[in-house]
């Protein structure tokens, strides 16, 4: 008896056992806690007679949205799509603009010119110390204080601002724009290859091969060919997509369930194999720590849970979504619709210039005395869009400028001096020595600023800009499903943020010092 007890005691004193026990207790506790809270939430909702359901995604909300893809959404899903696209519109253009202005401001802060430096510094101090919401409301107030659109404003203008928003001349997309964009991406890739090829030649043969000139002229020539109809060549992709779409239409939902399950199984297999392989050779050969076992087991468990979920109602829902079941969500996000959308956008028979430069137009509305900015030609920005965009861009640009300044200053002076002593020109010095090192320092904090910008777009709700939070709020007010809308928000913002940070991380890895 005593022996047995001491054995049990020894068992519980074993470090390995303890480690495992702690891990499992922690995991179990966490899962229990989450389930407990979910149960409480669902129970409370049931008590207040609100059943948790996703049905509202398919129902017609019956409200209109100020701007975006669907101004008269036919389903809750379309309504949320519109909000998401509006949010992404600000995020993507905002990141480009904030990076541009931020870089200029950062360089201005380093300028030797007294006025330039002080102007940039004072702008920084003002913007940095005022809450973003106040700034957005300020820009709204600024626009609203402009005069109203009047009769004598009617006509074509280069630029106009009034209390109805801002209108400017703009190269408007024509039918062939999407095809041209794709064509242009391919052209960029080709000219990049040309550049690399010429650099390789230079390194091998030691003669001046003018790589930049070569790649630029390739791009210009390809651009010219594309602009005057050459872009139609990508119609081939549309042609193929049409076939893929037709092929996908006959696939049943079970196919996707199986496909995703197999994918999950395969990924977990790869992950486990990788962990085993990493211990195949060297000092640690065959020595797996408890952590390693734990990781492997968790990977397998996750894969099993995922596969199980794939055949539960949620998996069937995902499959229906991918099949493009019109009835489920009235969506056109299914895979067949996706490919048929591509085949429609990349149509061989589209002709004409891809873009057309137009003046902004102020026009009469119907039979009344009201005036508005044309949404057909030129570009018109609503007050909400303008205020939100300007707010997040300036706010983020200020922080980016500090990052740029810090990045450039962090490159040690010895590097520039060494470059100068090699006889490099100032421009080459900046391009070849200072900037590559500065960017390496700047990239991680830049990524954080991009994430901030993406999340700050939700402040658009304060100025009536219909981004995803504002739209979602309207939706749950009409349909009463608060929790599902919150879940969708969380998933959406996580997806956007994770996508952004993985892009930044990709470049970060690429620029990392290669250690040998």
């Amino acid at each position, binding site marked *: 008896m005593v022996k047995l007890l001491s054995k049990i005691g020894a068992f519980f*004193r074993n*470090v390995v056992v*303890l*480690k495992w*026990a*702690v891990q499992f*207790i*922690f995991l179990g*506790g966490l899962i*229990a*806690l989450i389930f*407990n*809270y979910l149960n*409480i939430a669902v129970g*409370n909702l049931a*008590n*207040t*007679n*609100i059943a948790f359901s996703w049905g509202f995604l398919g129902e017609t909300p*019956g*409200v*209109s*949205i*100020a*701007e975006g893809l669907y*101004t*008269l959404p036919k389903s809750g899903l379309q309504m949320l799509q519109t909000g998401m696209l509006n949010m992404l519109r600000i995020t993507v253009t905002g990141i480009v603009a904030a990076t541009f202005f931020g870089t200029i401001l950062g360089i201005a802060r380093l300028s030797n010119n007294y006025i330039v430096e002080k102007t940039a510094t004072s702008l920084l101090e003002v913007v940095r110390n005022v809450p973003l919401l106040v700034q957005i409301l300020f820009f709204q107030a600024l*626009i*609203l*204080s402009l*005069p*109203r*659109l009047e009769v004598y404003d009617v006509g074509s203008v280069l630029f106009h601002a*009034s*209390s*109805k*928003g801002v209108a400017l001349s703009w190269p408007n997309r024509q039918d062939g724009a999407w095809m041209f964009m794709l064509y242009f991406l391919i052209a960029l890739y080709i000219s990049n290859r040309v550049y690399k090829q010429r650099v390789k030649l230079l390194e091998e043969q030691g003669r001046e091969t003018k790589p930049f000139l070569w790649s630029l002229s390739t791009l210009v020539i390809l651009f010219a060919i594309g602009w005057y109809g050459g872009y139609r060549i990508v119609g081939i992709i549309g042609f193929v997509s049409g076939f893929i779409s037709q092929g996908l239409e006959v696939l049943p939902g079970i196919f996707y369930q199986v496909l995703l399950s197999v994918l999950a199984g395969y990924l977990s297999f790869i992950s486990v194999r990788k962990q085993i392989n990493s211990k195949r050779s060297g000092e640690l050969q065959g020595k797996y720590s408890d952590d390693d076992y734990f990781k492997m087991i968790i990977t397998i468990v996750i894969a099993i849970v995922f596969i199980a979920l794939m055949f539960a109602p949620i998996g069937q829902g995902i499959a229906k979504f991918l099949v493009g079941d019109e009835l489920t969500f009235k969506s056109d996000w299914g895979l067949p619709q996706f490919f048929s959308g591509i085949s429609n956008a990349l149509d061989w028979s589209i002709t004409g210039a891809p873009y057309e430069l137009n003046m902004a137009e102020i026009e009469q*509305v*119907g*039979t*009344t*005395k*009201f005036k*508005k900015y044309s949404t057909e030609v030129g570009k018109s920005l*609503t*007050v*909400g869009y303008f205020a939100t965009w300007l707010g997040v861009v300036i706010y983020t640009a200020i922080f980016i400028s500090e990052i740029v300044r810090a990045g450039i200053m962090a490159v040690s002076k010895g590097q520039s001096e060494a470059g100068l002593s090699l006889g490099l020109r100032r421009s080459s010095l900046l391009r070849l020595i200072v900037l590559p090192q500065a960017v390496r320092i700047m990239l991680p904090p830049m990524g954080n600023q991009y994430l901030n910008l993406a999340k700050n777009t939700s402040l658009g*709700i*304060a*100025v*009536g800009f*219909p981004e995803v939070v*504002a739209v979602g*709020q*309207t939706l749950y*007010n*009409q*349909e*009463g499903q*608060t929790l599902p809308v919150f879940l969708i928000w969380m998933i959406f913002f996580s997806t956007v943020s994770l996508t952004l940070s993985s892009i930044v991380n990709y470049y970060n890895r690429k620029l990392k010092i290669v250690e040998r």
Partner: protein
Amino acid sequence: MNKKAIVFLLVFAMVIVACGDTTEEVAVEATEEEHDHEDESTLEQVQERGFLKCGVSTGATGFTEVGDDGSYSGFDVDYCYAVAAAIFGDYSKVEFKQLTSAERFTALSAGEIDVLIRNTTWTQSRDTELGNDFGPTTYYDGQQLMGRVADGLSNSSTVADIDGLRVCTNAGTTTEKNITERVGLAGGTIQLITVEAFSEAIDKFIAGECDIVTTDGSGLVGRRAVNDALNDWVIFPTSPISKEPLGPTYRSNDSQWADIINWTVYATIIADEYGVTKANVDSADLEANPELGRLFGANDGELQTKMGLDAKAYYNVIKQVGNYDEIFSRNLNPLGLFREGGDNDRWADGGLIYAPPAR
């Protein structure tokens, strides 16, 4: 070194286990407490707390107004006072909670407030999907539009005239749905800008970002009066584009609480029918009018005590707050809203304000 690691792990494990236990216990206790709370009826909760939590608007002229000294007044506010008077015999035992239209139903279902009296329209979906029940309608309203005379609008303008215009309204209301539906039926399209509070919509209308602003007629009339634009702004169409019955809202499945709210409203209407006002309630002839006698608790007030209230509950309502006509005239007449000949007139005079008999 190894021993240290083991000791550390042991301590760590104990901490984790201890933490895990306590959190779960706390969670369980919390749920139990919540269940205790849920078993209590709303009336018991309110009486225990000692005051009523009433959800009102963030600002609707004539319905909810906050004075410079922080005092509340208005049509909806008076009904909050009336409910407090019925429960406590003291109308001042109310804590007001200002809610935007987007927040109100969440606040009600989460128990932040006991009753929502915030010009809330009774609709089928709100009644069934949101876990609410609606009390008797206190004000029959209808959605209308407001534009500028200078823009060529007049009383006779219709929904068809606003095709292509930019319209502002506040989020989370029935107005968004109504205007979308009506403009769609008229074959037009509008650009609908929704903002958090109606005052923001008015700001945008004044600045010219929006051509038209829309909400319940009473709200528009109030705003027009406040901004002193009686001749510059015009409200149309004459017959509202929607039915907006406004009244108190409470959580469903608590019929005792529902009865208290409903009969507080009915008491003010019945008192008005008999012409009993704040001033003459003490001299009312309860012998000659047995219905009033029952309502004011003359003969032991059995009906009120069965509801869980004081026998004199509705006497207190009239004594301290007044009858329907008084509440209406006090708050809405200054804005130019009158009962005579409208939907909110007494039923005997062709209106819709009607109460079931008290017996």
